[in-house]
């Protein structure tokens, strides 16, 4: 048996040698790595470079749009936990917009704190670009109607992460990372009742760790959450009103 195998093996060996020996081969001889940091200092660009010329019309259109002053902010708006002036502005604005669009009343609105992408808006004129920075994602404004027990879970979820922005008319306290003494528009929260509220499709689809919301349908208002904010500010300005939001004791964290 052994004798029968040996010649085959050596044949195979020669065959491999022939193959590799005769083929025109490029051997990987060396790899060097470097990284360029792209700054004004390392690369000097002339204004008339073809690339700049390609960008220019788009940038012009964008700047025109983004630099548009759409309203005025009365005093600095800041983002934070458990309640913040910026968060109050956002949730009050989308609640008002949802009510305007559907001509229906909702019990409240929420926003995940991670969905607000800037830390503050300074007092003074506010342009469209600032709202894009605040909310760059194309999330839709949606509404949901759910049983009280789901609302209980929702408030506990918000309490667990130290509080999320919630609209005017709701108050609660965070104790041991749970929500307590929840008041909704002057009434104590009732787990037996049904509530309707305003949020983004991102959250309605279970984002922001609200997986329990996925089991319930939502109504898409067909408007981006961001555009609702722009519309709200624009309308306020038309009525010669400034954006005003303050911390008013909506959410109090007793764990701190």
């Amino acid at each position, binding site marked *: 048996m052994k004798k029968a195998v040996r010649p085959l093996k050596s044949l195979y060996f020669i065959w491999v040698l022939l193959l590799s020996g005769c083929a025109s081969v490029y*051997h990987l001889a060396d790899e060097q790595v470097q990284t360029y940091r792209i700054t004004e200092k390392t690369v000097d660009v002339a204004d008339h470079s073809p690339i700049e010329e390609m960008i220019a019309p788009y940038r012009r259109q964008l700047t025109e749009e983004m630099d548009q002053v759409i309203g005025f902010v009365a005093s600095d708006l800041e983002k934070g936990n458990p309640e913040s002036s910026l968060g109050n502005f956002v949730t009050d604005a989308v609640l008002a917009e949802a009510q305007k669009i559907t001509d229906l009343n909702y019990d409240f609105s929420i926003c995940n704190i991670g969905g607000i992408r800037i830390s503050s808006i300074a007092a003074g004129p506010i342009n469209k670009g600032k709202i894009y920075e605040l909310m760059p994602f194309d999330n839709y404004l949606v509404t949901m109607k759910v049983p009280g027990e789901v609302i209980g879970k929702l408030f506990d979820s918000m309490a667990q992460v130290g509080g999320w922005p919630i609209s005017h008319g709701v108050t609660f306290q965070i104790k041991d990372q749970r929500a307590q003494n929840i008041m909704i528009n002057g009434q104590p929260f009732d787990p037996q009742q049904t509530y309707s509220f305003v949020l983004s499709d991102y959250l309605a689809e279970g984002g922001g760790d609200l997986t329990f919301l996925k089991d319930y349908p939502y109504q898409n208002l067909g408007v981006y959450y961001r555009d609702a904010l722009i519309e709200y500010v624009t309308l306020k300005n038309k009525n010669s009103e400034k954006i005003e939001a303050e911390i008013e004791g909506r959410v109090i964290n007793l764990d701190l």
Partner: protein
Amino acid sequence: MHRRQFLRQTATTASLLSAGMFPMQAIARPKTTSLTILHTNDVHSRIDPFPMDGSRNEGLGGVARRSKLIQQIRAQEPNVLLLDSGDIFQGTPYFNFFAGELEIKLMSEMGYDATTIGNHDFDAGIDGLLKQLPHATFPFVTCNYDFDHTVLREQTKPYQVFEKGGVKIGVLGVGIALKGLVPEKLYADTRYLDPVTQANQVADKLRYEEKCDYIICLSHLGYKYQNEQIDDIKFARSSRNIDLILGGHTHTFMPQPDIIPNTENKPVMINQVGWAGILLGRVDVSFEKNRKNRCVTCQNLIVR
């Protein structure tokens, strides 16, 4: 890991070293071909440099500067490949307003040779991505997204082969699992396939059928995760026939590339260059052409 050296200094150091320490071999040096690979990842619609607003990255990046830098390198190097590892879209109002049109047009103008698809490239839906493809003069390579039941059917390629200075280079692409990361309505009926199985099949084909001398995988899997999720490190370890992985997704600024042994214990290099076009990565590869079955100059380059 022998045949490679990974000095972070420039090529000059290496040639001085080899010329100084091995003068005889340096004189008898066989014919070599060099390839310069330039790469970006996660540019995220960052067309203009970051605004001067006191933020961490203020004044960094910008397509016009990157383009100029690429031009300068092209003027010096005969064989350049320009590649991107996905997430071209989303992050500035340019995307909100123009849906990625300018990003793709600029990449074509800069002469990108190939890209793969990142999760944010689905942000305008697969229809949105399809709409921008006519602006691309380069292929989108991906071997683990099955678009057969979508509008992107036959619009992407599993790989692309390039020939530069006689050397054949295969470029393939792998993408991240979309479920839970991208809303389902955006990726529609795209099927996610196992990146390791798919990439190994494609790399085998590139090596043995297409006879590629060097194989690059554009990856949007992400550099490294603590959990079981597939990342570039695990991918490299389970791969075969891939020489270089150019990564993305995790926005990792790697101080130096990683070298990971593959299933055949051959080294795979992994590199990733942060995000937003703040950096441009460059990998210079040299190849020695001979009729022997081993590389001569490679022996001089053992550093560690």
